[in-house]
Structure formats: structure tokens, C-alpha cells
């Protein structure tokens, strides 16, 4: 399955944080598995696993494991705040 990923805020500063298309290995089929897999193979060293990091799929925040589909755009969002 091919998806696209985007890293926002401080997550974008990690060397392994590369926005764009990605082929998922078999077994990585939901957001929880994706998060764990990317944290390991892209050297996030736990940063992606932190409970403060939210995940959006197709511009909607998805809490808990959410099944991924071909072509999904998955965004990793660390704590937000403007003003």
C-alpha cells in the first residue's frame, strides 16, 4: 500500500522526517502500526510515539488506531499553539 506522510513542527527537524510518498510493508495497515514503524526505521527515537503527537488522515484528526487506505495522506502533528 502506498500512502504519503507529512511531518509538522519540531518533527520536521528530524533527519529521517521526509515528507512524501511511502510504500508500507505488509502488516503496517493502521495509524498505530505506521507510527511505531516510522519511529523505528526513520530514527525518531520515540518522538513519534509521544502521546502529544496527533495524527491526521486526509485532513481529519484520528484518535486511536485508524485503518489506512491506498493514497491516504497521513500527517504527524506535535503540540499546537498560535497567538
Amino acid at each position, binding site marked *: 500500500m502506498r500512502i504519503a506522510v507529512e511531518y*509538522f*513542527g*519540531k518533527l*520536521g*527537524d528530524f533527519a529521517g522526517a521526509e515528507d512524501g510518498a511511502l510504500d508500507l510493508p505488509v502488516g503496517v495497515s493502521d495509524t498505530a502500526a505506521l507510527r511505531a514503524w516510522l519511529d523505528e526505521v526513520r530514527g525518531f527515537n520515540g518522538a513519534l510515539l509521544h502521546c502529544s503527537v496527533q495524527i*491526521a488522515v486526509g*485532513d481529519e*484528526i484520528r484518535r486511536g488506531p485508524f485503518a489506512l487506505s491506498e493514497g491516504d495522506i497521513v*500527517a504527524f*502533528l*506535535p*503540540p*499546537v*499553539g*498560535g*497567538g
Partner: protein
Amino acid sequence: MTIRLVDLSFDPGAELSAFSTRAVGAGGVVSFSGHVRPQSTDGTVQSLMLQIHPVLTLAGMQTAEREAIARWSLIDSEIIHRHGDIGASEAIVFVATASAHRRAAFEAADFLMDYLKTKAVFWKKEAGPGGERWIEPREDDYADAERWI
């Protein structure tokens, strides 16, 4: 009701003039403007970079504005928020609310700012003398936002 995400400098005073003209019939208009501090404690000029999400940032602000409209009797409201690179002393955010009686305008502006500080989808990086660092909301900001739940 207006929400604008802008990547160029703006003047909160000019925005207040325009807003007050539009909000005819309001007894009271409250505004908040937030600026980049011109200097850090050691005197060095600082700047900010605000990153947005192409969809979620505006969507979240619209949700907050809808909630403000549902909770308070407002004649009009406006949110202007910068993104991209913001120079020292420049305005980051402007919120204005207009209502027949001032309490609604004060509370709604306060509420919108608490939302913007803790829930609006921005990521903020400060460039100062010690290099760059990402800034997250302070504990006070989260505590302030809890007041409206």
C-alpha cells in the same frame, strides 16, 4: 464574521478601524493584538516562524469562532493570524469582537485568544541568540483554556 490567515505584516489599529466601521450598532468592541517581543532578555532581536497546516489551521479557527458565536451574543468578530516569518515587534494575531454589551465582547475575545494559544493549529519556532527552538504553549495557557470547558 471574518477569519484571515495572512503572510504579510498588518496593522492592528487599521484593522480595528475597519472592524468598528463594519460592526455598526455595537455598544462595545474589544480587541486583542499579540506582537513578537522586540528583544529577548539579553537584548537580542528575535523573530518567529509560524507553520500552518493547509486545511486544519483554518478549520480549527472556524470551529472556535462558531463556538464563540454560540456562547455569546456577538454582532461581529474577526480573527487575523500571521504565518510564515514574522519580524521583531510585528503583530502575530488580532482578535476583535463586537457586542451590544461589553461583557460578551470581553469574554468572547478572551475565549478566542485562549483557543488560539492552545488549540489553533500553528507550530511556532523562535529564532534568538541561542539558535532556533520550537515553542509550545505554557502551562498558564493550558490553564486559561480550561476555564471555558
